[in-house]
């Protein structure tokens, strides 16, 4: 009531003033009339009324005050005072605001990127109702995974859909479906198999035709219909208005187009889908698998729309019951569900990666902001000492310390908000461009991503909080410091030379030290990243890539049976081998460093639990072509490959890990209960699967007849890469014109590994430069200030016969002491940070000497330069001028 009335009064200030005027005037008029009744003359009656009333202006003021927010008014006064103080000192204000703008700008920018990629709700109507559901298994888990481990099987999906009480709809879709769109020139597109309530639950209406109805999902393989994306419809079908009812070919199966999705709709993932087909058509799209029948295979992502009024907690409880029931069919397994408001990249595995990288980057920009804060704090300190007298006078006439601290803090917050506004303007303005350039640097075969980086409530909230915190962080220490003073010296104003040196000197030096230390951490990290990048481009992965071309294709999805695949492979190997210049043609399930990983569990002889292995299936000549030497034993023979013999080759690391101090040859690994594999060879470690890593259990199997449908091609040729690639493409087209084949140099695989490092190195380079700039401004400002404060002292020294070099040495020594101390702390801090970095990014040697020696030298050099300039000014001080100074 109280606040509400005051708020109304605040908004209707004019009216309130008029009313008050009226009310008091009425009183005076009544009294005057009464006085006249009693026989007073006109003037006399009025004066008497006034006398009796008291001081009208004062009364008005008191009334007005009781209607206003006193603290608000004080704040307003502080703000006006602060603004005046800032305007009076434009040089200081400009530097402080710019430093803050840089710090807050990069932070807001990075946060917007992160927000756009992983915090925004899905771009669908009433997105706050949509939740994503992922499974996390514990205990004894036997499960097939297609995509990511948290996905659901079709049976599980139906269970959750039918037995939940909290959703108005629960949808499922397979998020990683690649399909070949047939036609004149076949094209690889990304799509999704979806439950038939997909569009309905998301609240999306088609732009053309219809979306799925329940009958489309009634029986497996019964309803070959498809909804196209607007993008595909425009770019591939020329926005044909009569597309509905026409037939398209996906992975060589015929589908009838029933609709086109709304223009902006790309599905619930950042990689937009080109088409959607009913989940029941899975077998038509992926002929080699029948996921609908596999009750223990995870392949479907789940999104539910909560009923109005239902909370996340209720959903968790409701679905938890169903998870418990499913667990009863799997002895020793417990399932927990991760249920969150749906965002892009919301699956646990994706989250981990995004937040790990996001955390490192946010920490880095946080450090830049900290340097900026230290900088502004130092400026404020210097300014506070020049306002010492003013503050001392206010304190001595009884101003409360809190009142003055508050005034000073208001001023810092004002700087922070100016900086924050400027910084965020720059950030939002440049962000689109940055996002575009990052996307443009992703590898060519990576899916197209949508990335909406426009600011939303999250970003504004972050910006506001960050700005307020920034203002307090850089303002508090100087404000407290400035108000803790010895009044008598300060008022007399002769603190300049002697007291000024002692007071604030330590705090200022500490701030410089902190800046240098943080700057050191950022620069060394940047140095490490760049060195890592350099090494990644020059380092030897332990096998040969030169002259090797890879051809990647997927036969099973194109309906190849095992027999047909075998014939195709045989024919293709023969034809490619006959190409001019080609001297070797080998096959492998995955090509080295292609970011494809195959894994399984095998039991080591004498152990009970299975261990997780990565493996590859290769033709016998694979090792020779790639220059991967054997340490012991032999490779497979052609006979073993043809006979699907149970033999394998392990890496040196694997042999050491599993059979330390023993000969690995002849040892066995068991698959399930049935099959024993015998180790016949040990291979020298190489980075064939993960660049930069040779650790991890790994084995190779011979490529037998059963494996033919999944093999890809590695071709070594003496002719140019372009010629070889062209030859392979033509050969493939002759064999199967509808098969899409990715032909590239094997060395191109390195590129994808370097991209994260490259983006982060570029970013950290920019941040490092920014940090260096800020820190050198800081050092320069502090040394300049110190010199100006000590002009008199220096003058006296010079007058007493000290020579210029001595004075220079004195100034430099004092200036560089905090720099050196800060550097030492920075180097120590960075040794710790580099450990974290090397976990996240490839190629960071945590103890790279060049980064750890070169960067500190660079920083010290810059700091020396920053202090040398003001120091030289000190030496040129004319003793006479100095003594008269102030």
């Amino acid at each position: 009531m109280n606040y509400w009335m005051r708020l109304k009064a605040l908004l209707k200030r004019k009216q309130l003033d008029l009313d008050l005027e009226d009310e008091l005037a009425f009183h005076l008029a009544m009294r005057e009339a009464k006085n006249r009744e009693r026989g007073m003359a006109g003037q006399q009656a009025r004066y008497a009324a006034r006398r009796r009333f008291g001081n009208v202006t004062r009364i008005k003021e008191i009334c007005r005050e009781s209607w206003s927010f006193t603290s608000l008014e004080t704040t307003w006064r502080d703000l006006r005072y602060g603004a005046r103080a800032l305007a009076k000192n434009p040089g200081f204000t400009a530097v402080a605001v710019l430093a803050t703008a840089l710090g807050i700008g990069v932070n807001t920018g990075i946060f917007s990127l992160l927000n756009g990629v992983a915090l925004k709700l899905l771009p669908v109507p009433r997105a706050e109702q949509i939740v994503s559901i992922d499974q996390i298994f514990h205990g004894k888990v036997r499960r097939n995974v297609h995509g990511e481990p948290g996905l659901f099987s079709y049976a599980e999906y139906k269970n959750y859909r039918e037995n939940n009480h909290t959703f108005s709809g629960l949808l499922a879709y397979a998020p990683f479906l690649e399909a070949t769109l047939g036609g004149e020139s076949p094209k690889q597109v990304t799509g999704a198999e979806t439950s038939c309530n997909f569009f309905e639950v998301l609240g999306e209406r088609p732009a053309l035709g219809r979306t799925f109805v329940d009958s489309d999902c009634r029986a497996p393989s019964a309803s070959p219909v498809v909804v196209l994306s607007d993008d595909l419809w425009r770019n591939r079908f020329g926005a044909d208005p009569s597309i509905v009812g026409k037939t398209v070919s996906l992975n060589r199966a015929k589908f009838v187009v029933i609709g086109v999705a709304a223009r902006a709709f790309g599905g619930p993932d950042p990689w937009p889908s080109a088409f959607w087909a009913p989940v029941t058509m899975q077998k038509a799209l992926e002929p080699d698998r029948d996921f609908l029948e596999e009750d223990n295979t995870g392949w479907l992502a789940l999104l539910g729309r909560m009923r109005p009024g239902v909370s996340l907690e209720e959903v968790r409880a409701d679905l938890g019951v169903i998870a418990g029931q499913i667990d009863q069919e799997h002895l020793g397994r417990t399932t927990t569900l991760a249920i969150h408001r749906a965002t892009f990249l919301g699956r646990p595995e994706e989250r981990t990666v995004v937040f790990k990288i996001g955390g490192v980057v946010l920490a880095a920009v946080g450090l830049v902001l900290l340097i900026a804060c230290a900088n502004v704090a130092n400026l404020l300190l210097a300014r506070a000492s020049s306002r010492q007298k003013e503050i001392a006078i206010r304190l001595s006439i009884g101003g409360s310390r809190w009142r003055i601290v508050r005034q000073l803090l208001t001023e810092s917050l004002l700087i922070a908000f100016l900086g924050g506004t400027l910084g965020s303007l720059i950030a939002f303005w440049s962000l689109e461009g940055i996002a575009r350039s990052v996307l443009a640097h992703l590898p060519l075969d990576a899916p197209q991503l949508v990335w909406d980086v426009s600011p939303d409530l999250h970003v504004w909230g972050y910006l506001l909080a960050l700005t307020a915190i920034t203002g307090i962080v850089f303002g508090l220490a100087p404000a407290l410091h400035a108000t803790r003073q010895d009044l008598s010296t300060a008022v007399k104003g002769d603190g300049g030379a002697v007291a000024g040196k002692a007071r604030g000197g330590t705090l200022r030096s500490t701030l410089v030290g902190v800046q240098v230390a943080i700057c050191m951490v950022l620069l060394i990290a940047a140095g490490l990243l760049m060195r890592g990048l350099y090494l990644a481009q020059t380092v030897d992965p332990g096998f040969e890539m030169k002259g090797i071309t890879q051809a990647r294709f997927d036969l099973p999805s194109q309906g190849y049976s095992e027999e047909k695949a075998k014939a195709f492979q045989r024919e293709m190997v023969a034809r490619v081998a006959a190409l001019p210049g080609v001297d070797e043609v080998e096959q492998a399930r995955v090509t080295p460093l292609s970011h494809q990983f195959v894994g399984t569990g095998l039991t080591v002889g004498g152990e009970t639990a299975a261990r997780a292995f990565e493996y590859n299936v290769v033709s016998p000549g694979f090792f020779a072509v790639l220059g991967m030497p054997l340490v012991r034993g032999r490779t497979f023979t052609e006979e073993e490959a043809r006979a699907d013999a149970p033999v394998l080759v392990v890496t040196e690391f694997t042999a050491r890990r599993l059979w330390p101090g023993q000969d690995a040859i002849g040892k066995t690994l068991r698959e399930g209960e049935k099959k024993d594999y015998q180790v016949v060879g040990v291979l020298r470690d190489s980075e064939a699967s993960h660049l930069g890593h040779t650790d991890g259990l790994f084995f190779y199997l011979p490529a037998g007849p059963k494996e033919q449908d999944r093999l890809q091609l590695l071709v070594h040729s003496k002719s140019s890469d372009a010629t070889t690639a062209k030859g392979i493409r033509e050969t493939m087209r002759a064999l199967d014109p509808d098969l899409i084949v990715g032909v590239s140099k094997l060395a191109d695989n390195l590129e994808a590994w370097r991209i994260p490092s490259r983006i982060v190195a570029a970013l950290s380079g920019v941040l490092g430069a920014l940090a260096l700039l800020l820190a050198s401004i800081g050092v320069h400002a502090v040394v300049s200030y110190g010199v100006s404060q000590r002009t008199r002292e220096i003058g006296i020294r010079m007058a007493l016969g000290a020579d210029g070099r001595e004075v220079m040495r004195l100034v430099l020594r004092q200036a560089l002491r905090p720099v050196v101390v800060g550097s030492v702390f920075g180097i120590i801090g960075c040794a710790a940070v580099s450990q974290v970095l090397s976990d996240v990014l490839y190629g960071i040697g945590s103890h790279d000497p060049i980064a750890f020696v070169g960067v500190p030298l660079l920083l010290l050099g810059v700091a020396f330069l920053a202090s040398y300039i003001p120091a030289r000014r000190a030496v040129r001080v004319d003793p006479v001028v100095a003594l008269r100074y102030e």
Partner: protein
Amino acid sequence: MAALKSLWVSAAANEAKESGHDMEKEGDLMQGTLDMLVLKALARGAKHGYGVAEWIHESSNDVLHVEEGALYPALHRLELKGLLAAEWGTSENNRRAKYYSLTAAGRKKLAEEAEYWRRMSGAIARVMQTA
């Protein structure tokens, strides 16, 4: 009884004027009394500020001389506290005037204050009467 009241009010007021430091504390005491008088003045129905001043003046037989200006901060304060409701109306001589009336909370407050005052003044009277 009336004389005692007048003494107390003006004594408190004088003291408050003299010593700047204790102004708030003594002022509160005076405010409290003035507030009570204002509430009492409005107990019989809505009045404008001038009416309140006149009522206090008359019903104390011209003993209580409230500084009339001081009445208005009190009225506004009580309005903000929700003890009074205010409404613009037309006065007996056809001028626009702000009329104050007691709210339910105001009525309750008045009853509390009156009770407190009755006990205090009774106690003080007894103390003063003992020889």
